[in-house]
């Protein structure tokens, strides 16, 4: 542990190469395990789907294709955003069961505002509509969250009960607001947040630019961290470990970007875009089979090889990544985050240290509400509609993702990236099973089983650690 060579020797002999690797690189073995599990799941689905429906996937299936991975990330973003807030709540020994119903309520309220009020008033497509719609989602979510928090902190009703009540009640309010109807379509300016229209795609150039910026930030953070450690005389990581982290980190970013930039626009959109912008589609190009006429959608893509646009990152994914970054910053670098973790570790100690734990509880619930607001924007924009069943069962998926991601229900332990990875694992299972045409009932069974399995493995892991 000390930095002098003599006292390090015995330690070196005792620990194995693997232990030493994790200690030196400061990589969390748990996180690496989750990434491995994720990759394994992806590979299994790709191989399996290859038997049923051979496609362009890495192993001949339809899972590891740019198209599927791109969709997977978009599908994950809503749950991932909410799970980052659930981490803080569960770390603080609280729980929010109402996020699903809250999402429906917030989305319906925003949809009613857009479709019935602002649309006729300002004219459909007015830029103010999306601003108002998003603002209402955020404000309403934050407000409802704060109410949940206040009832928990000051009225001393257990969060489980408060939010169970919310789960039932908010759905009812959502039903009343829209008289039980599906409110659709959302305004076209708002729809951009769903990732389904060309305005919400970053395109290859800006996607690569963003990726390079992120790589630069990763390397800058490593260098800055090393400078800080030197300044305070703390133990430094070996240079090879710094390089490894830099290379692997940048590699992952560039790899994901490459996949995102390999997913082409749907042919219909290319056609429309070309027509609108007077771009000539090269005619008469033959597909692989030599057919010259472009009929079916998939083959049309090949026909338009001469004119192809790639999507790059889509807005909901960017929003989720940004939320993940901001929430990680909040959790690890701010006093607020420190208080949340300390309160989860020992509520009494936090109180005795002078932390206003009641106010803190309200703030964490309100933050959860804000994130539900963001998710409701993504969900309703993606569906291009809002109903009182939009967020159905979302609370369960969010909590499952958080727990799969390593957050302990006993409080005090949990990471944002873990929960987001958990959300990705869960969504991978769900959409993988859809690709295999397995009925939804099987998907539920497997997701439930995975949740229990993840917690079981986690307990074995932490017991061995002690």
């Amino acid at each position, binding site marked *: 542990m000390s930095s002098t060579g003599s006292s390090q020797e015995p330690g070196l002999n005792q620990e194995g190469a693997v232990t030493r690797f994790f200690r030196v690189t400061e990589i969390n073995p748990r996180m690496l395990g989750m990434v491995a599990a994720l990759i394994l799941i992806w590979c299994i689905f790709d191989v399996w789907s290859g038997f049923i429906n051979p496609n362009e996937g890495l192993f001949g299936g339809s899972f590891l294709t740019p198209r599927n991975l791109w969709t997977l990330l978009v599908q994950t973003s809503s749950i991932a955003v909410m799970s980052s807030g659930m981490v803080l709540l569960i770390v603080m020994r609280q729980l929010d069961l109402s996020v699903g119903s809250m999402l429906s309520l917030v989305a319906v309220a925003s949809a009613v505002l857009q479709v019935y009020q602002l649309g006729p008033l300002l004219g459909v497509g007015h830029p103010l509509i999306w601003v108002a719609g998003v603002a209402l989602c955020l404000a309403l979510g934050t407000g409802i969250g704060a109410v949940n928090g206040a009832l928990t902190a000051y009225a001393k009703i257990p969060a489980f009960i408060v939010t169970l009540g919310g789960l039932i009640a908010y759905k009812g309010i959502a039903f009343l607001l829209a008289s039980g109807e599906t409110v659709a379509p959302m305004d076209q300016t708002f729809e951009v947040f769903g990732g389904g229209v060309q305005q919400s795609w970053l395109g290859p150039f800006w996607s690569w630019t963003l990726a390079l910026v992120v790589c630069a930030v990763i390397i800058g953070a490593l260098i800055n961290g090393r400078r800080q450690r030197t300044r305070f*005389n*703390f133990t430094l990581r070996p240079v090879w470990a710094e390089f490894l982290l830099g290379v692997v980190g940048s590699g992952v970013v560039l790899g994901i970007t490459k996949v995102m930039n390999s997913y082409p626009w749907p042919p219909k959109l290319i056609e429309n875009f070309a027509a609108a912008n007077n771009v000539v589609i090269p005619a008469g190009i033959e597909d692989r089979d030599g057919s010259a006429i472009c009929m079916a959608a998939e083959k049309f893509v090949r026909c338009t090889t001469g004119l192809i646009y790639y999507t790059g990152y889509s807005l909901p994914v960017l929003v989720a990544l940004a939320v993940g970054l901001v929430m990680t910053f909040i959790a690890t*670098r701010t006093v607020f985050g*420190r208080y949340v973790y300390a309160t989860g*570790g020992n509520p009494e*100690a936090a109180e005795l240290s002078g*932390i206003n734990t009641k106010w803190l509880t309200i703030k964490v619930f309100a933050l959860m509400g804000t994130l539900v607001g963001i998710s409701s924007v993504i969900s309703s924009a993606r569906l291009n509609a809002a109903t009182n069943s939009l967020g159905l069962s979302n609370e369960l998926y969010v909590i499952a993702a958080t727990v799969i991601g390593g957050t302990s229900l006993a409080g005090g332990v949990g990471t944002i990236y873990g929960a987001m990875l958990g959300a990705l694992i869960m969504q991978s299972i769900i959409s993988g099973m859809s690709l295999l045409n397995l009925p939804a009932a099987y998907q539920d069974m497997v997701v439930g089983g995975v949740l229990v399995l993840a917690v079981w493995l986690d307990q074995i892991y932490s017991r061995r650690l002690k």
Partner: protein
Amino acid sequence: MAKKAVKRVAPKKIPTKPAAAKKSGAVAESHESPLAVKNRQDFEASAPLVEMRDISIAFGGIKAVDRASIELRPGEVVGVLGHNGAGKSTLIKILSGAYQRDAGSILINGKEVTINNPRDAKAYGIETIYQTLALADNVDAAANLYLGRELKTRFGTLDDAAMESETRKVMHRLNPNFRRFKEPVVKLSGGQRQSVAIARAIHFNARILIMDEPTAALGPQETAQVGDLIKQLKADGIGIFLISHDLHDVFHLADKIVVMKNGKVVGTARTTDVTNDEVLGMIIAGKCPKGAIPGPGAMRDAA
């Protein structure tokens, strides 16, 4: 005459502060050596750092603390003794802001103050080492040391590097063998956890230190270390409340002892004026010996 004056003051509970103190100092002359009297007069001439007057608190129907009064002067160590459940921890938690009193008043440097929560107490320089240590087990030593008063960078974010660096300095003074700065405190030994709790209490220029059973979890060597630390803090002019159910822990460290039983103060005595056995009698039977000033909890016939 002397005793009568004190007795009259004590049960009635509202002594006009400085006058009462002087009077009791003066009346004590009769059965003390001239040197002792002089010491005592010098001692009592300094204003009390803390005075808790007629503090009462009830939980449900149980009076955990009943009209208890207690005071502490700069550089003084006051041992608060009593059985488990005698009310000593509760009384002291009122001072540290963990509980709110039902009745009574708290004076700091002669001025009445309001202490509604631990933040208020810390603002008056009152630091507490709790029996349970009150550490957040899941975060590291530096995070615990600075919990509630984190160091921040100029951007308002946590300055972990600076906090860890400072923590290394403090811990080096208290416990030179301590090296496990990166680990959550749940992984530390009892003694190491104790030193984190002590470091947290003394690092922020405490003027009043409350130690609740500070040596309960410690071995003999670590207990001796805590004893040395108390002497050093006392020399710095810090007033210390030492709470214990074990008389031997505190007798040689304390200048004064206050014994509590069933939520009431049995008596207050300078450690030089009473013997071990007499204090034991106070703790067990509530019998107040000659050398002590009886409180409302003293047995009638003994007073």
